[in-house]
Structure formats: structure tokens, C-alpha cells
């Protein structure tokens, strides 16, 4: 008997979602197969890789990155432009660290101004993230969505607590894209998509952020959650789970011991920068391997490696 390829045919299809506008807009999703399985069916758009920047000077970042960004890190618009020109990511993620009520507590108006300057400085798509404070995120997103009207940004994220405000401003009033954030659970992910749908946000305007952790820190739950979401979306044609997935890898990988231990704390471990890049690459690759359609990373080396990998797998 000759060898016969084992092919998995699914009924369902992941929605294709466009972020940004013009020539540099990106499309994510669109596949009829589980991640990277070109031999099964149309594997959709190749995973997209974005770079993280922040609205305030990144005090906590490693020295080499502060050095790389030293002329621009105090000005988010200049920083974004620099990233677009020098690093060429698929998109930029602007994180509003400065809006944290336990930190600088910047006003929604200030944040909106920064977002507007950034989006106008670049031609690649912009993803906008808050601080994980759901109340404050809703407040700043309300203003930012208006300020970046017409730019088709993605907002990270709408949660169970604030989806009404975020969904209404990002998804309905200004026709941006809504990132639906849940915590590592297929049912919670589904429920939030349903709630957004009931609010009137179109499925095609939603991407999911189903949670994140660094490899070694409960990452297995992420793998299984994404596996189950994809099997339900494709195999059972579950429309409420057919949104593409975006994972902000850098939000988690730069806070674990492997990435923050100084060389004098862990002399045998070697270069802190190399460790941090390694954790970032490994986490991003692994989540792409199960189904993330876009990931956010911090280090240019991670970006370069992941772009190389995904282009080889396309």
C-alpha cells in the first residue's frame, strides 16, 4: 500500500479581519485549517508580528532597548515612526502604561492626543492596549477611538467588565476592531463574543485575546485552550469562536524570572538579554504553532526571528 496523506477536512472557517488602512493594512485569520497545516486546506494569512511601544518612557526595559530607542522613547510618535522604518514589523502595539491609576494616571484626553499623533506618524496598523485596569481602559478607549477615527485600529481589550463601553466606542461608533479578552477558558471566550454580538458588534470586527503566559508558567493551559477553540471553530463550525486570535506575548514574558534576573543574581544563566529574547521567541512560536494569528513582541531580534520563521512556514 502506498502512503496516503492524512488530511483533515473542516466545515468551518476563521474570519478574516483587517486592521489598519491603505497599502500597509494587514489581514489576519481566514484559514480553514488548524495553524500552519497547509497540507489540510487553505491555511489563511500568515501570522503577523507586531512590536510593543509605550506612551511613556520605558523605565523598566533592558538597557540595550533603552539605548536603541534613546532618541525617540520620550516621544511615542517619533518612536513609532522609528520602529516602522527601522524594524519593519507588521504592526505596532501602543501600550498606555501612563494611564495606570496607580501610576501616572494620565487623563483620557492626554492619551487620545498621544494615540492620534502616533497613528498619524505611521502607515502600518496600530493596536492600542491599556493597562489591565478595566475601568480606566474603558475611559481612555472612549476618547482614543474618536481621536483615531478612520484608522481602523484594534483595541486591546474589551473584557467581561468593560465590553459594553469598549464595544460601543471601538466597535460601533468608530468602526475599529475590538479585541475580546478572556482568561484561558473556551467558554469565557465564547461568552464574551456572544455578548459583543448582542451589543451589535459584527463578528468580522472582533479578534480574541484568550489570555497569555510565558512558557513555563501555566503555558500548557493556553495551548489546550487554543486547541479547543480552533477545533470547535473549524470542526463544529461554531460561529461564536471563529474570530482570529491575537496574543500579546511581551506583556507576560518580560516579567518572569528568566527575563528579569540580573546577571549577578544568576551568574550561571548568562546574558539577561539573550534569555529574555529566548523566552519571548519560544512563547510566541508555541502560541503561533497552536493558532495565534498575530503576536506582539518587544525585542527586535524576536521580531526578526519570528518573521523569518513565519515566512518559511507560509
Amino acid at each position, binding site marked *: 500500500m*502506498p*502512503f*496516503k*496523506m*492524512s488530511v*483533515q477536512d473542516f466545515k468551518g472557517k476563521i474570519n478574516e479581519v483587517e486592521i489598519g488602512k491603505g497599502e500597509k493594512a494587514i489581514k489576519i485569520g481566514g484559514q480553514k485549517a488548524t495553524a*500552519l*497545516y*497547509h*497540507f489540510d486546506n487553505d491555511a489563511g494569512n500568515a501570522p503577523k508580528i507586531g512590536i510593543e511601544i509605550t506612551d511613556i518612557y520605558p523605565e523598566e526595559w533592558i538597557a540595550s532597548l533603552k539605548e536603541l530607542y534613546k532618541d525617540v522613547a520620550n516621544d511615542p510618535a517619533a518612536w513609532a515612526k522609528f520602529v516602522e522604518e527601522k524594524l519593519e514589523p507588521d504592526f505596532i502595539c501602543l501600550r498606555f502604561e501612563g494611564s495606570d491609576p496607580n501610576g501616572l494616571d494620565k487623563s483620557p484626553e492626554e492619551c487620545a492626543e498621544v494615540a492620534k499623533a502616533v497613528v498619524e506618524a505611521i502607515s502600518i496598523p496600530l493596536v492600542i492596549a491599556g493597562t489591565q485596569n478595566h475601568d480606566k481602559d474603558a475611559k481612555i478607549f472612549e476618547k482614543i477611538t474618536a481621536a483615531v477615527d478612520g484608522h481602523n485600529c484594534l483595541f486591546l481589550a474589551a473584557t467581561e467588565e468593560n465590553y459594553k463601553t469598549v464595544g460601543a466606542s471601538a466597535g460601533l461608533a468608530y468602526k475599529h476592531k475590538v479585541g475580546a479578552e478572556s*482568561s484561558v477558558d473556551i467558554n469565557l471566550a465564547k461568552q464574551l463574543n456572544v455578548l459583543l454580538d448582542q451589543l451589535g458588534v459584527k463578528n468580522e470586527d472582533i479578534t480574541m485575546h484568550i489570555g497569555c503566559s510565558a*512558557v*513555563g*508558567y*501555566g*503555558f*500548557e493551559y493556553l*495551548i*489546550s485552550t487554543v*486547541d*479547543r477553540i480552533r*477545533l470547535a471553530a473549524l470542526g463544529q463550525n461554531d460561529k461564536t469562536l471563529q474570530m482570529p486570535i491575537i496574543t500579546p506575548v511581551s506583556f507576560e514574558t518580560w*516579567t*518572569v*524570572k*528568566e527575563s*528579569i*534576573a540580573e546577571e549577578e*543574581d544568576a551568574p*550561571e*544563566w*548568562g*546574558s539577561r538579554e*539573550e*534569555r529574555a*529574547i*529566548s*523566552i519571548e*521567541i*519560544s*512563547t510566541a*512560536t*508555541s502560541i503561533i*504553532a*497552536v493558532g495565534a494569528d498575530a503576536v506582539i513582541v518587544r525585542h527586535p*531580534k*524576536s521580531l*526578526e*526571528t*519570528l518573521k*523569518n*520563521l513565519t515566512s*518559511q*512556514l*507560509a
Partner: protein
Amino acid sequence: MALTGLDIFKLTPKKNCKDCGFPTCLAFSMKVASGGSEIEKCPHMSPEALEKLSEATAPPMKALKFGKGDNEYTIGGETVLFRHEKTFVNRNRFAVMFTDQLSEEAIQSKLDNIKKVNYVRIGETMKVEIAAIKYVSDKEKYFNLIKKVKESGISIAYMLICEDVDVLKEALELVKDEKPIVYGATKDNYEAMVSLVKDQKLPLGLKADGLEELYNLVEKVQGLDYKELVLGTEASSVKETFKNAVQIRRTALKEQDRKFGYPSVVFANELANNDSNMEIAIASLFVVKYGSIIVLEDIDYAKALSLFSLRQNVFTDPQRPMRVEPDIYPINGADENSPVLVTVDFALTYFIVAGEIERSKVPVWVAIPDAGGYSVLTAWAAGKFGAGSISKFIKESGIAEKTKSRKLILPGLVAVLKGELEDELPEWEIIIGTEEAMHIPKFLKQLNNTVEANA
């Protein structure tokens, strides 16, 4: 493939002698088919019938042992494609590549790195398990290389990569007691290769151009009655290699076709082209998707810390979070003056926290209430790690008798519990610890200093 009762019945002697404890051979066969009894309960089965049965009831993917003593490992034996269905059982193993083209310094440096990267994470030893030793062109150098690895004193299993049967024969003499994997059987040399490894039942690695050729090769080798196999996934691109690894696993488990029912070998080193970040990406891809042996160019902590942790995660039981027993534990010789530190009963959390406390050398009591086996924030969000349950545990665990200290240190991530705990435990001073466990040593040393300064 599952056998029916009738299939099994056909293989019994049909004596109905009841020695198995069942009234008839058929009744016995039905029971065996449903898993209610074992075929060994019939003392009259012929060896041929037993062999047929064990083959038919063997799992679709072979579990293969290699290496010896402390360095014996099992790979393969997986039963599912996705880990939420059932645990992945045999973790992939990492190899580092040596060839006869390497300079003495390069060999020594790899050996030193293998020696250096050897640590414990959550109770599991993390190290390179296999020395992949490849013959390229210089016979004498190759034999010397093998000797050098053996004499280096590293504790490791071997995979000899060689397509030249004569060279391999001599090379095998050097590691014949180590039960090495032999990689390099092709469509041109497989007969000689099989006869070389058959007596010792060494795992034989097959290498072919594409899946069809590999499939045919397995068929031929199986035709020689040899079934201790590992399958090469080699291809010129990451994309093809990925396809090969997935197809091998899927053909075995989904199509139940035993021709591909074997573990695989992935040469991440070759695909990465000396780009070590790329190697991390490729190796991660194959840890998640079906590489059984993953060959790396070299090892260092940057690589190991992510690849070994990822592997540890992927191969945990999805149904049961690893837990530690709720209780109070003394660390670093805690006594009647030591403070109390609270954490959760999730094994990952406990081992990380305990490791850092040990590093601090400061004696403390660790109090672990029942938190459902969850991480700090998960347990808190699930309502299983709140002021109520913590204070109840502190009151009932008897910790107040074990130590006179009334300092209670909380994980920084649940600083919000401070006020409530102060109300519930008025005798205790509630101290907010660090968010990250790695800062515990510094934190505890400072705490100790202030205590001593006050004393």
C-alpha cells in the same frame, strides 16, 4: 486497532477447560476484549497466538526505549493528537550535535556546555539527554570523537548518525553497552543496517527523501521483521519538516496505520543554519508539534530555560493540576522565631517560591492553605485564596504554636487582602511580599535585618 471478542476467540485453543476462571473460551475472550481480563490468564495460549495478540493490541505508536541506566529514556507511545484529550506521555528528548568535522576546541566547548546546563525545575532534571554523533567523512576522527564524548564523564545517551555500515560497525563497538540509537538506515543500506542492530535490538533511525519513500522504507524494514524504529523528518525546509512530523504522528494515531507508528527525529540544528534564535523558534515548534528527538547545535541557559520549561508544560497532565499538600512547611531550618510566608498549593508556584526561599537561606515557615491547586491570581479570582480562607488556615494549622513570630508575608499579587486580613488576624502583622518570587531572597534578608536591628 481494537480486537473484538471473536478475533481473540479464534486465537484461543478452544478447550473450554475453565483454567482461566471462565466457563468457556468465548466468554473469556469477550471479557478480554472489553478489558475485563488479561490474556495471560489462559495458560494454554500458543506463543504464536500471544505474539499476534500483543501486536494487535499494541498502542498505535510504539514506545521505544534507548540509553542505559540513569540515561535510559522512553520516547513515543503517544495516543492522542491534542493534549486536552489525554496526557502526552513521553516527553521529547533534546540532543546536541557532534561531528567529525569539529575542532577539538569546538567539541570540548559543547561538552562543557552540556555539563554546565544541568538543573532542576519543579522536581525535574533539565539537561541534554542525547549526544548525537555524526559521521561525515573522517573515520579516525569519528571514533576519537565518540571516545572523547564517552570519556568526558557527561551522563548522556547516544545517537550514532552514520550511513556507512562498516564505519558504524566499528563505532558501535565503542558504545555497545549504552544501547544507543543508530540513525542512518536508507533505502540503499537498510538490510545491512538491520542485521547490524538486530541482535541488540537497538532503535534504528530511518532516513528517506519525503514521506512516500519513508513509508516504503518502513514497510521494507518491517518486512525484515524489525520494528524498533525512529523516523527521520528531514527535509530542506522548515515547512516540509513540519509537514513530515505532523503527518507521521497523524498517520499513526488518526489513520491507525502502524507504518508511521514510531517516534520521530527533528534536526532543528540543520534547519536553523547556525542562527541560535531561529533554533529556539524551530525547536519550540517541534516541542509543541510532535518531535520526539530534537537535535540542537549546542546548548546554553538561554535556550534551555525556555525549551525545557515549554516541554515541561506540554507534558503535564491536563486533567489534574500538580498540587502540593496544604500544610505548614519549615524551610531552611525554620524555628520558633521564624516568620510565616503564605502561598498557594499549585505545585508550580510552590516549587518556584520554595526554591527562592532556599536561595535566601533565611529560615521561614511556609503556610499553604487549600487553594484548589491554582496559581495565586487564579485562586484569588476563583475565590479560593481570600482573607477568609487564609485566616482560617492560620488559626487552624497550629502555626501560632510553632513560632513566636507574628509576621505573615503575603504574595505581592494579592496585596488587596491586607486590610481584611488585619481585621481577621489582629495578632499578626500582615506584610506585603514581592510580586515576583525571584525578589524573595532580597526581601527576606532585609526583613531579617530589621528584625535583628530591633532585637
